[in-house]
Structure formats: C-alpha cells, structure tokens
C-alpha cells in the first residue's frame, strides 16, 4: 500500500513537472512572438521547459532511458532542444512559406465543384475497395453502403436526378437491407470472420483488377468521344416519366412482369424449408 501510494505520488510529480514544462515552453514562445521577451531569455526558458518535459516524460514513455543523474538529463534535454529547434526553424522558415504559397496557388486552381466530385469518387472507390478486400462480411456490406451513396452523388453530378433518388431508395433502402438480412439469416457472422469472408487467390485478383482498370482507363482517356458541346443540367423526372409511357412502354411493362415473377419466385424458393418441415410434421 505504501509502495503504491509513493508510486502514485512520484507519478503525479512527474505529471505536474511535465505540464509545467509545457506551460513554460508555450508561454516563452508566445511572449517572444509578442515581442515582450528578448531572444536569450526565451531560449533559456525554453531549454528549462524542455528539461522539465523530458524529466516528466521519463516516467511515461522514456522509461527505459537512465535520465536520473545530473549529467545525463541536461545533455539529453539539450539534444532534444536542438532537434526541436531545427524542426521548428525548418517549419517556420522553409516549409511554412512554401506550404502557404502552394496552398494559395492550389486554391486558386481548384474549384469547389471539382473537389466535391473527387470526394464522391473517393467515397465510391473506397467503399468498393472495402467491399472487395474486407475480411468480415458485415464490414463488406457496410462499405457497400458508401459505394452506393457515392454513386448516387455522381448521378447528381451528371444531372440525373431521378436515377440518383432511385439509387438511394432501391440500392441503399432495398438491396443493402436484403443483403444484411441474408447475412444474418445464414448465421455466418459469429463464427470466424476470416472463414466467413475467405479469399481465394487475392494477389491474382488484385492483378486482374489492375489490368482491367488500366485497360479501361486508357480507353476512356484516349478514345475520341463525340462530346456534346454544352452539357445541360435540367430537371428530367417529368421527361423520364413521359418517355417510360411512350417510347419505352414495352420494356416498362416487361420489367413490371419480371419484377412480379421475381417476387413470386423468391417467395417460392425461400419457403422450401418451411414446406419440408410442415411435411415432416404432417407425416
């Protein structure tokens, strides 16, 4: 008990010295920046702050270093102070102006619209990659959510309002929930996730993906597409409804029949076990 309390007291002392050193460091820097403190006292105060921080940290992360003596602690602190001074000088005089300058040029070049597009593209591809490479099937399903939402955002970018809403409603609200139900009903979550979502020959698959992306991207960039001169952004839902009931009436009706057949077929296929058990009960 006594050992524990003395350990606790030493720990608290270390913590207090650490905080005091940080305060001295920050206070000296701020006073120097405001012009209240000359350079030499600033450096001295910062050095003592670093000594305090190093001695405080010796109780936590530098625990392996023998910094107890009156010689090793100042020398090690001087080394840390020199390294910090070099890093600070580098950031203040070299990297800082360069970063601010390049950021100013970058903001001048890039428009907000482009940034939003890249955000949606990264969301889509990141979600798809998570779906492809995740170990756990539940994580795959949740990454699929990001991929679907990103694709909906890309539809908005392309002026396709109705497909964007349909994407959110049908994919996110319907198909993803269906997939999650199938995962839960097949009871493969609680077991070993590596088994439930095992990969076959992932390096071969990654090579296949790289080749496919390379080929398709080369084609997308190099092909002479006949672009329309002025892409438009108009509300298209009304025109889409008219098109479904005039030009595309036969595919529309066929699609409704297909949906009905899929509904009935899914119910019949998935009801198999209930029918068998009821048969066995009847027998």
């Amino acid at each position, binding site marked *: 008990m006594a050992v524990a309390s003395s350990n606790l007291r030493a720990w608290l002392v270390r913590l207090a010295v650490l905080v005091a050193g940080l305060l001295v460091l920050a206070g000296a820097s701020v006073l120097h920046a405001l012009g209240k403190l000359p350079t030499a006292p600033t450096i001295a105060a910062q050095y003592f702050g670093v000594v305090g921080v190093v001695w405080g940290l010796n109780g936590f992360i530098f625990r392996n270093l023998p910094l107890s003596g009156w010689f090793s602690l100042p020398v090690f602190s001087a080394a840390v102070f020199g390294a910090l001074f070099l890093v600070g000088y580098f950031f203040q005089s070299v990297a800082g102006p360069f970063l601010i300058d390049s950021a100013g040029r970058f903001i001048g070049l890039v*428009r907000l619209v*482009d940034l939003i597009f890249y955000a949606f*593209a990264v969301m*889509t*591809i990141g979600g*798809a990659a998570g*779906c492809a490479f995740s170990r756990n*099937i539940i994580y*795959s*399903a949740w990454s*699929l959510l990001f991929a679907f939402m990103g*694709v909906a955002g*890309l*539809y908005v970018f*392309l*002026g396709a309002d*109705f*497909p964007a809403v*349909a*994407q959110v409603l049908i*994919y996110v609200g*319907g198909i993803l929930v269906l997939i999650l139900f*199938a995962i839960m*009903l*097949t009871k*493969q979550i609680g077991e070993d996730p590596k088994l439930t*979502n*095992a*990969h*076959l*020959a992932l390096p071969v*698959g990654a090579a*296949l*993906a*790289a080749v*496919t*992306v390379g080929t*398709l*991207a080369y084609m*997308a*960039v190099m092909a002479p*597409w006949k*672009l*329309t001169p002025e*892409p438009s*952004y*108009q509300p*298209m839902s009304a025109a*889409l409804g008219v*098109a*479904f009931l005039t030009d*595309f009436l036969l*595919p529309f009706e066929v*699609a409704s029949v*297909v*949906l009905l057949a*899929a509904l009935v077929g*899914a119910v019949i*296929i*998935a009801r198999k076990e209930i029918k068998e058990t009821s048969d066995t009960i009847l027998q």
Partner: protein
Amino acid sequence: MSQSSIGLPHFLIVGAALFALGMVTVVTRRNAVGILMGVELILNAANVNFVAFNHFVEGPGKLTGQVFSIFVIVLAAAEAAIGLAIVLAIYQTFRTIDVQETDLLRQ
C-alpha cells in the same frame, strides 16, 4: 454556367474502378452473399457509364441513358431478391454458403 474541368473520362475511370473491384469480389469470394455484392458493384459501374454517356455524349434533352440505368436498377433489385432467396435455400440444404462446398445437384 461555368464549365467544370470534370469531363467524361473522370466518370469512366470511376466506373472502371468500380467494375474491376466488383470483378475481384466475384472472383475471389467464397461466400455466396459476397459474390452477390460484387455483382451489385458491377451493375453500378455499368450504370455510372450509362448516365455519364447520357450527360456528356447524348446531349441535352435526351435521356436514353437514364432510362437504361433505371431498367438496370430494376433488374438489379429482381436479381438481388432471387439470388438471396437461392442463397437461403442453399443454406437450408447444405448448412453453409461456401460456394466451394456446395457442389451437389441434389441431396
């Protein structure tokens, strides 16, 4: 309207990446539900291409690409319902949905 620097190739590259990742999912997964997820990714990639071509190539006022994308979404919904029902039936028969072990036509 200010012309954005985002053009047709950007969307086609996103579609290509989606397609490739979906194909990897279909090829490497052993879980049948995972394979269905890969199929959904591939259908989404095709949809992105349809809508992008509708916007950049077909021109204002035309919407054949959007109509196609709606049909693809409808068929994807039907495919998901049927496919997941088949997965459930397989699970009820074999007690697993590992596609390497479900190799019997009848039991």
